[in-house]
């Protein structure tokens, strides 16, 4: 293949040097640290992230304002929110493993939130949506040039919220509100309880709960982010970072110069890029096959292919 990791200028294994951020981070605290640095430096004046119930209780005016009744919202359901301070970043940190419609806030960020320089974090498909919105801004008036830093996260697949309930409550037999952290790694879905209990589910249990739309996705490592990051390829507590665009290169360079991250060459760490490449190829081949199957899904009838 060869194109499975997308274009990138550099790749390292990295970890935030901010101990406080690391305490709340999913892995190496890359996204939180990058946004904290970019906020401090005025590179961005706000970032769109996936927050949650507890965040909403503290910062209601920073959350998406629509018809949703966030007072009733369930634990672990993501709420897209705009963060402008480090405290807010910490309150929103960590992976939620279900769908946060961050694009929904992109236009509103430039309107009622008044941002001129937006940071946004999202999955590979959300990075595709960001770039489509820049090139074909059908209803995204004055938004494209306001996107100052788009950070993509590695993603094998995502789950609807109800699937997470099914996995946590039915399979792992834990209450949603008692979960401290969820994680996918080492071939398992891990649920960590607040009292210290740990449940692991084999991924073959989780597959049937995946979001259907993920099965035609041909991007594992967020090829269209300015910077993309994920735990795969790096040791525990570290993250693999791809620096991709000119914007990404400039922000990463400044953050490194400011001492925001400690890094190791990706060639020196285990399991390294070999595993990232392997998983990327697995995802892409599996989903290309799905696309082929969709072409002959019925009797003389195909399912739609979104790619042209």
């Amino acid at each position, binding site marked *: 293949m060869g194109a499975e990791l997308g274009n990138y200028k550099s790749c390292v294994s990295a970890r935030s040097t901010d101990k406080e951020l690391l305490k709340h981070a999913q892995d190496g605290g890359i996204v939180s640290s990058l946004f904290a640095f970019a906020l401090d430096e005025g590179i961005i004046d706000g970032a769109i992230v996936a927050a949650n119930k507890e965040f909403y209780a503290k910062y209601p005016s920073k959350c998406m304002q629509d018809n949703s009744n966030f007072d009733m919202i369930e634990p672990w359901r993501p709420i897209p929110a705009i963060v402008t301070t480090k405290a807010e970043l910490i309150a929103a940190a960590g992976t939620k493993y279900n769908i946060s419609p961050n694009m929904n806030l992109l236009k509103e960020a430039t309107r009622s939130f008044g941002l001129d320089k937006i940071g946004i974090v999202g999955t590979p498909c959300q990075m595709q949506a960001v770039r489509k919105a820049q090139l074909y801004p059908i209803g995204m008036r004055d938004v494209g040039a306001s996107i100052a830093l788009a950070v993509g996260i590695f993603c094998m697949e995502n789950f609807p919220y109800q699937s997470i309930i099914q996995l946590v409550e039915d399979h792992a037999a834990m209450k949603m509100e008692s979960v401290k952290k969820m994680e996918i790694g080492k071939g398992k879905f891990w649920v960590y309880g607040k009292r210290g209990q740990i449940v692991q589910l084999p991924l073959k249990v989780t597959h049937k709960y995946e979001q259907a739309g993920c099965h035609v996705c041909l991007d594992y490592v967020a090829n269209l982010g300015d910077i993309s990051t994920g735990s795969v390829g790096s040791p525990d507590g570290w993250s693999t970072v791809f620096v991709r665009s000119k914007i990404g290169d400039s922000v990463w360079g400044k953050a490194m110069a400011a001492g925001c991250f400690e890094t190791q060459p990706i060639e020196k760490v285990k399991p390294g890029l070999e595993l990232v490449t392997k998983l990327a190829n697995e995802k892409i081949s599996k989903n290309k096959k799905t696309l082929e199957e969709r072409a002959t899904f019925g009797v003389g009838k195909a399912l739609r292919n979104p790619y*042209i």
Partner: protein
Amino acid sequence: MADKITVGYTHLSGCTGCTVALADNYAGLLTLLDRYVDLKYMPTLADARHIQKVDVSFVEGSVCINDKLAVEEIKETREKSAVVVALGGCACYGNITRFGRGGQQNQPAHEAYLPIGDLIKVDVYIPGCAPSPQMIRNVAVMAYLLLKGTKEQKDLATAFLKPLMMAADKGTSACFCDLMTNVINQGLCIGCGSCSAVCPVRAITMEYGKPNGERDLCIKCGACYNQCPRSWFSFDVVSNYEAINEAIMAALQ
């Protein structure tokens, strides 16, 4: 200047919002007019209003088929233009004019409105109510490259415009329902929220990671479906976003 493209603008049953969106390119519009575009006719922004022979014509608004002049104008636009671009939701899909039923002063008998694609062959759609100024700008630059550019630029412009040509071939009706029938029902929705961000009437909210439409509010503009990354997506074009954005900005420097 000999290598400018000639452009016209036909204004039918539309609210002038698309004209305003074009004008909202400010200095960018002036650069377009200076270097790339010879604007032959256009109500509101030019002195000449009558349809002439041009390379590209933009059409704003739907056609009132009870209005003889409007019907003649859309036909004449087709006859005299190499490329016809439907600009905005009304020209592409009927949009809010789909709800017209006559009775308004001072032409109460003007009750039937059709998107231009129901009367003529349309080459390119620019959906949106109104389309963003940047979308109009991008298509205008690409139209110029298509007609006057180098071989490489022509290929880029062709790839860029292809989905908008396919949209023109696809049909003349749009609705929030397109997200249900062509994205969610097809197992393609990824819950990103692009659709709800761009809905001009805020008819869409994201509920549990999927769009939920208040169908009575939908004005049938087609913005949600066309902005969706799973309606149409070209890796060839979007993967080159950085170079394309830079080329467009450089063209307007």
